């Protein structure tokens, strides 16, 4: 998970449950896709309760990031290549 922490991310939501993060992505972003836990995003296997919703907003990727002691954060990272890769999976 080290690579996620080194990305220039913006925290959209903190302290929410995993379900709240999923609901937020589905409501707030016109483009989203559902993936299973273990799916690789930014070269990291994603953790979560399936289905895991990932939002796309232009070149921004919005996804949940879970840490054992801090819960789930909803992060937003600008990365055109990753957004394009995810968009192709829809």
């Amino acid at each position, binding site marked *: 998970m080290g690579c996620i922490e080194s990305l220039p991310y913006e925290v959209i939501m903190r302290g929410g449950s*995993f379900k709240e993060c999923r609901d937020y992505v589905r409501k707030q972003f016109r483009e989203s896709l559902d993936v299973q836990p273990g799916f690789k995003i930014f070269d990291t296997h994603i*953790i*979560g309760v*399936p289905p895991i919703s990932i939002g796309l907003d232009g070149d921004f990727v919005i996804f949940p990031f879970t840490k*054992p*002691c801090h819960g789930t954060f909803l992060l937003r990272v600008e990365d055109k290549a990753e957004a394009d890769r995810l968009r192709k999976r829809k």
Partner: protein
Amino acid sequence: MYKNRGLIDLADEVKSQRSALLVLGCPQVPVQTSIALYLIHRLRQAGISPVVAGNRSAVTLLVVADPKRHYLGETLDLDRAIDQITEKKRDFDLCFVFIHNDAGVSYAATMGVISKARLYAIIYGEHYDKIVSSIEFPCINIAANAVHNPMPLKKMLDEVAPWAV
């Protein structure tokens, strides 16, 4: 002939030894370390090889409590364990996920998808009942209202006796 037969039997035994992964959560609730060591002990007694995965603090609590590693065996960084299982480089027969918060539920759900192990959710803390009701994926719940005193959780663990399955 007999000697060779013995070697083959030994190899089969090593190959067939069952393994268990203990996925630790945040160590802020005291019972986690105690119950993890107890579970490791019971697994070893049953001939099951335990491997512990957790963040640095959670694993270090165990390492310091068991300096000669009478109980503790292999330890793994949690992210590394997830990587290895997801990439099919490794898997276990049993998996125990320690849960006292929403993050723990996420880790348990993840293990349920990426691993073929029989999944046990060990749920504790003052909000254990809410956590139990939030789990909607297949797993065996071992739950008790335990924060400082491990005995209610130990009792539940002994009743389920996952090492005997």
